[in-house]
């Protein structure tokens, strides 16, 4: 780091010889950069920031496509209604249950598989390809496949297994609790390979010498896992948790295809409620308020997660 001479930094810039060419070229670079950035940023503003502002405005309106004659300014009425809406609170709880359970399952199963497969010398490429399959598929298709060929009573494979195991045929998507479990399992099925791939890559990046040193220091396998692997993997795990949480909070396609939020509202997480309110029940004003609520929940949760990450990093 160069140190400013005592007589330089304080020197007035009006001295003879001042050219300021560096500032001119910096300005030129700024203009070039702006020209490159502007189209993308205009597009981003138009497709994200503008909708956000518009959304907030809509949420202060009574806007009902089924009853357009009632439309008008509503102020905070939608939000007041929301706070008193048991269906909202229920959807919020479902969102949290869905998010926490899917994220925990993904991380635990993904980590366990990564640790197991680390030891495998051959066939890792095969696993990577298998793991990629669910991840690249459309959640809508995944939902359709599970709903039709896995969970349909009688000829769905899962139902067949349940019958064979003596549990009898279950109404997997018709029973409220079973439906929730089903959508959680489907989400976990699709996204665990993602956690697995990220954690496997992070595990592979840990240097062997650390483990050799730990063995020389007489650490057992369990101690090596708790004292070395987990702490070193923590950034990757936290990253996976953050990413998966954001996705789970706004999960839509698979649930929509499998249960559409039903039976009744048994699998109606907040995201689905906002959609149904807006596009099935056509109350765009109240639907917007629900979307804003989802945004606030997302922001709160991500703030907590990012704080967690920073604290651990420090």
């Amino acid at each position, binding site marked *: *780091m*160069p*140190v*400013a*001479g005592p007589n*330089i*930094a304080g020197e007035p810039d009006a*001295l003879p*010889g*001042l*050219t*300021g*060419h*560096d*500032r*001119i*070229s910096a300005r030129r670079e700024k203009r070039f950069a702006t020209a490159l950035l502007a189209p993308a940023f205009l597009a981003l503003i138009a497709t994200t920031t503008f909708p956000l502002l518009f959304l907030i405005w809509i949420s202060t309106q009574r806007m009902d496509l089924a009853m357009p004659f009632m439309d008008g300014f509503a102020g905070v009425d939608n939000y007041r209604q929301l706070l008193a809406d048991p269906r909202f609170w229920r959807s919020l709880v479902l969102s949290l249950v869905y998010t926490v359970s899917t994220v925990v399952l993904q991380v635990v199963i993904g980590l366990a598989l990564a640790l197991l497969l680390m030891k495998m010398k051959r066939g890792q490429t095969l696993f990577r390809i298998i793991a990629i399959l669910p991840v690249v598929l459309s959640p809508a298709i995944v939902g359709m496949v599970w709903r039709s060929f896995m969970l349909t009573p009688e000829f769905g494979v899962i139902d067949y297994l349940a019958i064979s195991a003596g549990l009898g045929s279950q109404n997997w998507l018709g029973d409220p609790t079973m439906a929730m479990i089903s959508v959680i399992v489907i989400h976990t099925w699709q996204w665990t390979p993602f956690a697995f791939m990220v954690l496997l890559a992070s595990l592979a990046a840990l240097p062997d010498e650390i483990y050799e040193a730990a063995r020389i220091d007489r650490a057992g396998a369990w101690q090596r896992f708790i004292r070395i692997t987990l702490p070193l993997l923590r950034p990757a795990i936290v990253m996976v948790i953050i990413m998966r949480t954001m996705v789970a909070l706004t999960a839509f396609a698979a649930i929509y295809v499998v249960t559409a939020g039903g039976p009744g509202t048994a699998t109606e997480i907040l995201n689905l409620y906002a959609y149904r309110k807006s596009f099935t029940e056509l109350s765009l004003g109240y639907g917007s308020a629900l979307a804003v609520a989802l945004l606030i929940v997302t922001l709160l949760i991500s703030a907590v997660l990012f704080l967690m990450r920073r604290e651990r990093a420090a």
Partner: protein
Amino acid sequence: MTARGHVKVEKVAKLHGQVAALKGVDFDIRPGEFFALLGPSGSGKSTTLRLLAGLDKPTRGRILFDGKDVTALDAQHRDVAMVFQSYALYPHMTVRQNIAFPLEMAKTPKTEMAERVEDAARKVSIQHLLDRRPGQLSGGQQQRCALARAIVRRSGLFLLDEPLSNLDAKLRLETRAELKKLQRSLGVTAVYVTHDQEEALTLADRMAVFMEGEIRQIGSPAEVFARPNSIDIAGFIGSPPMNLMKARLDNGTPVLAGRPLPLRVKQQAGEIVVGVRPSAITIGEEGMPARVDLVENLGDNAIFDLSFDGGLVRARGPDPLAFAEGQQVAISFDAKDIHLFDAASGHRLEAA
């Protein structure tokens, strides 16, 4: 046509925010000269080279090429050739395309381009590698490719940013000599940035020693080596560096370790520093007492670390086995080999 490649730098300063990377430097480079910018990292030498190339612009001051003010010109319009420390070869192009790129940018006709590329490649003996890609070349070959890309321009000014630092030691010595020959035969002006004082001493016609964003001394290598104008430069140039020993003046005579030295300065009294190069120190029976602490055997000569007057003094001697570690010896040196500096200001004191 008069000789091309005259560079004049006037009061050039570069600030990054409030931090001065360069505090105002002035120098002249004559056409055809090999001019080294020498200094430790962060001293401003690379900043100066980037300003010459036009990659950065000075906050103050002017830069003139052959009398023309180029301060405001961007790199792309300056017509200078540059060899980067990392070579900066374009990895997706063949060697031929790399060398041709500056010509292409100057819209040189196709036939002339092919000829000049071949010619430049021949000058650095890589004509057999023209269809390879940089990734398929060894470090030395990449360096030559970078040189060819500079030569092909036929620019009057070559800027070289530590071009040898990524080569292994043996290749570096070979390339150093070749580089000098190449510069002579092309008759171009070369500005050469290095932190390696040995490189500067061997290659340069003249050099500027940079420290803390300033030029501390300009001169031929022989001048700078023989008469460093400050303690900092004395300590920076020469390997191992000059021994610097605390002393004081008594009526204009320096007194070191209680003994008067056989020379006088104008100044009468005060704290001073006595500098003697390791090669100028003779170890023998006569002189001031010292003790051998360590012998660094270099094969055909040796460096002796000596305890002297409560400090460390290093001497170079021809015979590694002449003295053993722990042995009591005496050291002496000639008056002509003594450099005197003012302890407070660091400036050189001239013998009267």
